[in-house]
């Protein structure tokens, strides 16, 4: 064991947590958690949503104080009561949602909170120098005068990392860093992390994507229901072993499905053109059809028109030109709204459940009628009937294993996977013909992913037409019977999953159109 680790490990562990305990009322978020992160390593922490990863990191970064336990940084027992104290101990954090001021320049953002005196110029000069040096040392080049809002997501993340480094971070915590990145940006990020490691920095990587853990980490710790359940050396473990440890049982990473038996066309788009909110055309002349008993996957790097397409089909976004047919019936312009589309048995699982699919501030039973608030099941006349709403959701919670089984709990207090199941249950149980599904498993834990994938396959086998939009290629490949690839708002190709591979799809996603042989 000793000879397998690099010499840097002679330093005391960068972080050592012993017996960390944290309760939020009745919720025991962290139970007696122990964790040791070797200096100069990349340490992954995995676990399902709600396993306590974020709470643990929030304690380490000073957002919460633990009810019990000890934190040692570089061997010394410390108390961290605020992010300022965390920074002073050399701990930096890159949040999943960036904390950047978009209209300001990179330099301004990096300096924010560390301006160094009341006059800016001196601090600005020093920071500019420091940025240049960091750029050289770590290959983190960013134009200090660029406006942050103009930068791509990958570069914005780099600015976040620079912010931490400028403040002298020796230990860097990254919370779900790849959630917003394209595959190539993610690769860049990991290369960056390897450089940081080679320069002696310590990285803690929180994620639930197991492939990333296997790719980049040295050690990995698994959390489940507030407890640290296992520690592995990455080289000595496998994705399936990690998945099993996370969920606490055997998990199927790839869902099994049989032959598809496509029937009549249920959804047909003809030469659709769709604009975004700013009047920029994001979908150019897109035509396709989805048959009964078929899953059609729409692959593509995020931001290539898939979202606008999905919203247009759901009636949320106006269709500029083109035709839309459901079950052979032309949908007239007047009917292109969410209510009418639902009346046509088209249901929609939106890409962003926080922004669109649910009302976080509502109790779950109220979120569970969104879009169906006029339905007779939920009340008489003008009135809603809370009892009917609650019993309806209670039944769905049973059928979809939504935990906790508390219809009156606030929507925001469910984990991501359970929130997604609430959306799915609501949409699926309204006997749709066509399902529009966006990012069904984004931010969803492994156990729930398996459930959701099985459910979608079952719906396909029951003769529904399903259009699946996802940025996860694995998901598209595993579920789809046909794959449409979009780039720049156009369809660049169509494939059957058995006749393609990630490289081939990647080419189409990058906009390399098929050339007639």
């Amino acid at each position, binding site marked *: 064991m000793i000879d397998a680790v690099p010499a840097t490990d002679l330093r005391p562990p960068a972080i050592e947590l012993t017996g960390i305990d944290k309760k*939020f009322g009745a919720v025991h978020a962290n139970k007696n958690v122990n964790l040791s992160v070797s200096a100069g390593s990349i340490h992954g922490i995995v676990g399902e949503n709600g396993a306590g990863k974020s709470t643990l990191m929030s304690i380490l970064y000073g957002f919460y104080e633990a009810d019990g336990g000890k934190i040692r940084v570089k061997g010394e027992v410390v108390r961290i009561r605020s992010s300022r104290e965390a920074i002073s101990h050399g701990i930096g954090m890159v949040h999943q949602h960036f904390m950047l001021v978009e209209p300001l320049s990179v330099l301004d953002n990096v300096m924010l909170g560390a301006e160094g005196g009341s006059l800016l110029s001196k601090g600005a000069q020093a920071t500019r120098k420091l940025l240049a040096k960091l750029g050289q040392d770590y290959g983190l080049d960013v134009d200090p005068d660029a406006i942050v809002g103009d930068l791509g997501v990958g570069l914005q993340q780099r600015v976040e990392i620079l912010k931490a480094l400028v403040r002298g971070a020796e230990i860097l915590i990254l919370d779900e860093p790849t959630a917003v990145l394209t595959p190539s940006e993610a690769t860049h990020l990991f290369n960056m992390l390897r450089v940081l490691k080679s320069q002696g920095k310590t990285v803690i990587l929180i994620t639930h994507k197991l492939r990333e853990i296997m790719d980049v980490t040295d050690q990995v710790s698994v959390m489940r229901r507030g407890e640290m359940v296992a520690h592995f050396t990455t080289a000595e473990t496998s994705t399936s072993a990690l998945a099993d440890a996370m969920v606490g049982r055997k998990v199927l990473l790839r869902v099994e499905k049989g032959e598809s038996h496509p029937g009549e066309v249920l959804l047909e788009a003809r030469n659709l053109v769709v604009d975004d909110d700013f009047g920029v055309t994001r979908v150019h002349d897109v035509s396709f059809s989805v048959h009964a008993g078929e899953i059609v996957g729409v692959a593509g790097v995020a931001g290539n028109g898939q979202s606008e397409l999905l919203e247009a089909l759901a009636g949320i976004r106006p269709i500029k030109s083109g035709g839309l047919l459901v079950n052979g019936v032309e949908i007239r312009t007047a009917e292109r*709204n969410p209510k009418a589309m639902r009346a046509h048995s088209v249901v929609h699982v939106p890409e962003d459940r926080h922004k669109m*699919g649910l*009302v976080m501030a509502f109790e779950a039973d109220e979120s569970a009628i969104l879009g169906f608030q006029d339905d007779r099941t939920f009340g008489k006349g*003008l009135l809603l009937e809370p009892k009917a709403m609650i019993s309806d959701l209670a039944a769905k919670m049973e059928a979809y294993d939504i935990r906790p089984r508390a219809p009156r709990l606030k929507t925001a207090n469910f984990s991501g996977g359970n929130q997604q199941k609430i959306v799915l249950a609501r949409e699926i149980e309204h006997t749709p013909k066509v399902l529009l599904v966006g990012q069904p498993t984004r931010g969803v834990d492994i156990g729930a992913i398996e459930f959701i994938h099985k459910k979608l396959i079952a719906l396909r086998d029951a003769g529904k037409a399903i259009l699946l939009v996802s940025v996860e290629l694995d998901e598209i490949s595993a579920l789809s019977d046909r794959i449409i690839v979009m780039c720049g708002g156009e369809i660049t190709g169509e494939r059957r999953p058995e006749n393609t591979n990630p490289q081939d799809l990647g080419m189409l996603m990058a906009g390399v159109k098929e050339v007639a042989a």
Partner: protein
Amino acid sequence: MSAPVELPKWADVVVIPLLNITLAFVISGLVVLMIGEDPIGATKLMITGSLGSLNGLGYTLYYATSFMFTGLAVAVAFKAGLFNIGGEGQAYFAGLGAALVGLNLGFLPAFIVVPLAIAASLLFGALWALIPAYLQAKRGSHIVITTIMFNSLATALMSYLLVNVLRKTGSMDPSTQIFAASSFIPRMKDVLGYFGFAAPETPLNLSLFLALITAFLVWVLIWRTRLGYEIRTVGANPHAAVYGGVSPARITILTMLISGALCGGLAVNALLGEAHRVQLDYTAGFGFVGIAVALMGRAHPLGIVLASILFGMLYQGGAELAFDKPKITRDMIMVIQGLVVLFGGALEGLFRKPLADFLNRIGMSG
């Protein structure tokens, strides 16, 4: 960065307001002490002045009735994510509706005129909210700005009407004639007298019951109807509302109409129930106090009823205090009211975190 502080419901609706009011009174007491008066005596005087006699109680509840209407108006708009600052103007314009019926349809029997006059008040209040609502819904003009503007417009319009059109001939007083008696809402004294109870002469009238019924109906609207669900959805997450087939523009207009109509309740209580004519600036800032009442009542009808009674006490008790203690002027009363608004409304988050931490420590949260 920290998550919103979650408290158990009982702490949220009972303990927090109590703590805030207590702090407001402690600081008010210090101010009273600074000007050389006895704060405990002043407090006693305020309480006996507002609750200690049937006369005081009558005035307290009369003021409270007005605050219930304007408070509910602000709360309903708030649920749709709209900040209706225009209660003052909407209530003022509602007075015109009350006057048109009260002055012109008096020949009809009371059981027809009173409902008509009430309906006209509500309708005119709603109308004054319609244009800001339309501009917000269809043009994106911010409702805060437009409703403030419409307060000024209402003042100008009503001044013009009262001076040039509605003033009774030969009078220097810019006010309308007394409404026809058939449009009066019965006084509480007369109603009680009918049942054989003697009560002093106060402005309190049956509008109080109307306000309480309205509070209940607002609760039903917001929490029990499909429309209320849509209003809350638009307020909590407009994207989700669109996704759910709800038009935020439609809800914005509907909600503002309801809010404006509720402001019309001020005309019902103050004009049909008490003054029986429209005077210049009859609204006297009650529309604005509605904002404080709604904040303090946490935009919940029950909270608003309670907050209205508290503000009614402050108004009535304050008047008594200013009358009895020359050192404590009307301005002083304004300071005390201001402090209650400050701690009860604006600084309502002050005790949330400490209380949550305390409850956590003694294991009573959740």
